[in-house]
């Protein structure tokens, strides 16, 4: 076991975890932050996507120990003071979620995409979210939400 210090959504957390604990487990079990979901655990579904220093990563294949000193962003950090951010509002408006299980990961991947590329084309959206599966929506609502966000981007 080892002591880990993780910076999540701007806040510092200390926890005990095994040396080779995965970031996904550190967040969900160690910190009780269950917004990030456990899906396939083999890096294919993207339900576990979080941002690491602004980059979308699958937390099921990231060692928590490697995240010390880096900024981790999860879905819990998107809303500010209880107010949904624009991407979250547009996801709701455009039917970009149904069961909601892929949604945290999808939001984080979209956030990373929009930060690098505020006006992505449809093709660029597809590449940016190519690691996030959704079984419910057929993805069209997701495209619309991200495109709407891009259009509204300042």
């Amino acid at each position, binding site marked *: 076991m080892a002591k880990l210090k993780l910076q999540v959504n701007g806040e510092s957390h200390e926890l005990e975890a095994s040396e080779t604990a995965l970031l996904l487990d550190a967040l969900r079990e160690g910190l009780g932050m269950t917004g990030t979901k456990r899906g396939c655990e083999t890096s294919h579904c993207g339900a576990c996507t979080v941002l690491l220093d602004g980059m979308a*990563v699958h937390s099921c294949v*990231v060692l928590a120990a*490697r995240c010390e000193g880096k900024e981790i962003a999860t879905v819990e950090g998107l809303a500010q003071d209880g107010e949904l951010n624009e991407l979250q509002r547009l996801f709701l408006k455009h039917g970009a979620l149904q069961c909601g299980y892929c949604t945290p990961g999808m939001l984080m991947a979209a956030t990373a995409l929009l930060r690098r590329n505020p006006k992505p*084309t449809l093709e660029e959206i597809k590449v940016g979210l190519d690691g996030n599966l959704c079984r419910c929506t057929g993805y069209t609502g997701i495209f619309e939400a991200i495109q709407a966000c891009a259009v509204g981007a300042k």
Partner: protein
Amino acid sequence: MEIKLFRPHSLEEALSQRAQYGKDALPLAGGQSLLVMLRNKLIDPQVLLDLEPLGELRGLQARANGVSIGAMTTFFDLLYSSDVQNAAPILAQAAAKVGSTAIRNLGTIGGNLCHNEPGADLPPALLALNASVELRSRKGTRKVPLTEFFRGYFETAVEAEEILSRVEIPTLPKGARGAYIKHAITPEDLAIAGVAVVLVPDGKNPVSASELRIGLGGVAPVPLRALKAEAALNGTALTDEAIGAAAEIAASEAEPMSDPHASAEYRRKMIKVLMRRALAAAIEGGERNGHGKA
């Protein structure tokens, strides 16, 4: 038994640990393959050696005699590097086709080569680029051409006390062009068959090619150079017949396997199709990195 994570402060320290533990200490590069294998209990190391702190394994430098790429360079770095795009564009092309965005963000060239999964995208491109790797150990450094690096199914030339430190790509000859064409069920998948071609086109109508190298992936337990096909084509006019004959030879050099997604026979047939396409693409200017910003 809890696995220990060692975070060496220097490559030397990492090599000492490799020397001490041998195959019980696995180097951890991007983790995108290794951590999945760990989760599925396909490997059982005592120690994971974290390579992330090691500066010697980073960095991408264009040098006079070629490009030197640190083992910890990510797919993301490769595809956005202007050095790679200038000096070895098919490597950027291949990197763009690996897995998904999140995997490209963290996965590394060193990890990808050492994992050696059939159908991986970088190896055929690197083979066509005549790449070699640098393997470090406490005893010293050895350079291994990529053609000798892939030993068997998921097996490489990396010895128990070694760590792959750099990938070296020699300067391409003037006028060289290339293309990497992949056939898969969906874009994020491993290749059912992948063909990378580098050549220097010569003359017109018909074009002939020199310095021709062909890398094949997904069609044998290891990625390989289609040496006999190269010999048949190198320096000759690239007519339809010549290409067709060479494609047959390339297909016979492969040892494809059957799996739930494609039969061996189909893979062999696809080599022929992809070789034609890769040659055509290389001659006509090569497939540019089709990525927008991501």
